[in-house]
């Protein structure tokens, strides 16, 4: 697994390069430009703006310029938000998105592992069956259906929580639940499957034969190896949470990064979109790297590979 983690780091730079390159040329190949707004600008002003942001240069020169800035840690100026740099926009949105994302991940992990473990301990009983059906329902409930329903019930019918916006910890709760649900369901299914297999292993039979209480068997012995598939799921889960955040931030009107992405792409704000893509890409790669390390720490066999 250390090999794998090292490989991940080595491929990170080329991967991000491909990601940025693809996005860059995709955007430049698309019709429309950042300054085609409803009020059309005078041609001289547009030419000046284009010159100011080097949009009059050929695409490959702009790409080179962008990469040059990137190497120095400069994501460039936003083309839409006047006199703001992309880095400062991301820095504004990141803590908000991170708070919601972290809450969702925590919720999905704790809830998913607990439900999955419960189901595995009562294998084929009614509890197991209902948890598994619920998990499947959870997987089939997209966040853009859950989010409006949550608002309708917990913000409008029962005025317990804010319907949107961003003030105070209470406004994290509903978005985090909407975001976490599909991941929670996936983790519950993974935990149940893996724990079920481990509980059937001979060394668990030994623990049972020695008279250990079931609680200790599950929590002290069986859960750790059973969590391996859950750990490797966290990479895709992080990507899923980021994708989901685009919708959830829009529904709840949260000032995070997700909404920059769609808005930026619609406005042809090239630098902003590239910055967000790069940020998310780097985050997903970093997450997968941590997952590889955690895998190695949890599984002695994987360390030898």
């Amino acid at each position, binding site marked *: 697994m250390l090999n794998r983690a090292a490989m991940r780091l080595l491929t990170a730079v080329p*991967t991000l390069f491909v990601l940025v390159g693809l996005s860059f040329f995709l*955007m430049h190949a*698309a019709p429309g430009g950042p300054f085609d707004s409803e009020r059309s600008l005078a041609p001289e002003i547009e030419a000046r703006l284009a010159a100011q942001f080097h949009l009059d240069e050929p695409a490959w020169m702009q790409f080179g310029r962008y990469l040059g800035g990137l190497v120095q840690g400069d994501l460039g100026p936003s083309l839409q938000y006047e006199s703001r740099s992309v880095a400062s926009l991301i820095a504004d949105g990141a803590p908000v998105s991170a708070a919601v994302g972290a809450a969702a991940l925590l919720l999905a992990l704790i809830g998913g592992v607990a439900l999955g473990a419960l189901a595995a301990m009562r294998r084929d009983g009614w509890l197991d069956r209902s948890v598994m059906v619920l998990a499947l329902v959870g*997987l089939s409930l*997209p966040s853009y*259906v859950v989010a409006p329903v949550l608002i*309708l019930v917990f913000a409008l019918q029962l005025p317990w929580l804010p319907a949107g916006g961003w003030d105070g910890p209470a406004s994290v709760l509903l978005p985090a639940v909407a975001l976490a649900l599909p991941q929670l369901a996936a983790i519950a299914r993974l935990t149940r499957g893996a724990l079920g297999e481990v509980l059937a292993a001979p060394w668990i039979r030994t623990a049972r034969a020695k008279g250990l209480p079931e609680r200790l068997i599950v929590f002290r012995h069986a859960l750790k190896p059973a969590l391996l598939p859950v750990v490797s799921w966290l*990479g895709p889960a992080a990507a899923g949470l980021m994708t989901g955040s685009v919708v959830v931030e829009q529904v709840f009107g949260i000032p995070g990064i997700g909404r920059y992405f769609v808005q930026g*792409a619609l406005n042809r704000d090239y630098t902003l979109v590239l910055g967000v893509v790069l940020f998310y890409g780097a985050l997903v*790669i970093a997450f997968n790297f941590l997952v590889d390390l955690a895998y190695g720490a949890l599984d002695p066999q994987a360390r030898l590979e």
Partner: protein
Amino acid sequence: MSGALLKRPAIAVPAAILLLIVLLAVVGPWLAPQPFDAIDFDADWGAAPSAAHIFGTDDLGRDLFARVCVGGRLSLAVGFVSTLVSLAIGIVWGATAGWFGGRIDAVMMRIVDILYALPFMFFVILLMVLFGRHWLLIFVAIGAVSWLDMARIVRGQTLALRRQPFVDAAVVSGLGNAAILVRHVLPNLLGVVIVCATLTIPQAILVESFLSFLGLGIQEPATSWGALVNDGARAMEATPWGLIFPAVFLVLTLLAFNLLGDALRAALDEPRR
């Protein structure tokens, strides 16, 4: 084989639900009192469900039942067509990697790993935003991002099949790689491919409705379940049925596909008698 499978409730029930939903999407618009994009000027805007409009009307006075059916046609079509695209890419990629093995396999699967690590939805969103919202692009874009699972599964299965005696026999008898793959390997992949496809369809429907929810998918006057959920969510306080009906159809369809895929996989994993 298929008859025996259909006797199991875990397979028959979701299959029957799906059949009903598909039937409704196909036939429904003809049963509706007016076309999905026509406005009933006698009904109130956002009228509650009634005998005239069993699902009510939307905020422009269009019949919601007709709209849910027509939207279903598109959502289901996206599900099936995108899955076919992902099947084609996934099978070719996975079978090639699994069959040739060695360095080719390592490189091809490494590429899949890297693609897995990318936030792929962002590419689909970019594609949709930048190149208009043509429905053909929706099909291809979704198919093109959902073949990774298929490739992994097919590759694993092909690796296992390659060591089977009947494949050795085909090699010894002088059959070429392509012929062996088509005649001996692919038929044996059918089971896993069907299971994977059943689970890919709801993913594709999800992606399409995700795009439409953001206003990046299908455009007016055409509609899909995602677009309807989006419209419904905007007016949910005054006219909750606008959200409820398309959402129920969407979730029921996704759930039925997931149930069916799960049950088929369980049936496939059972030891053969």
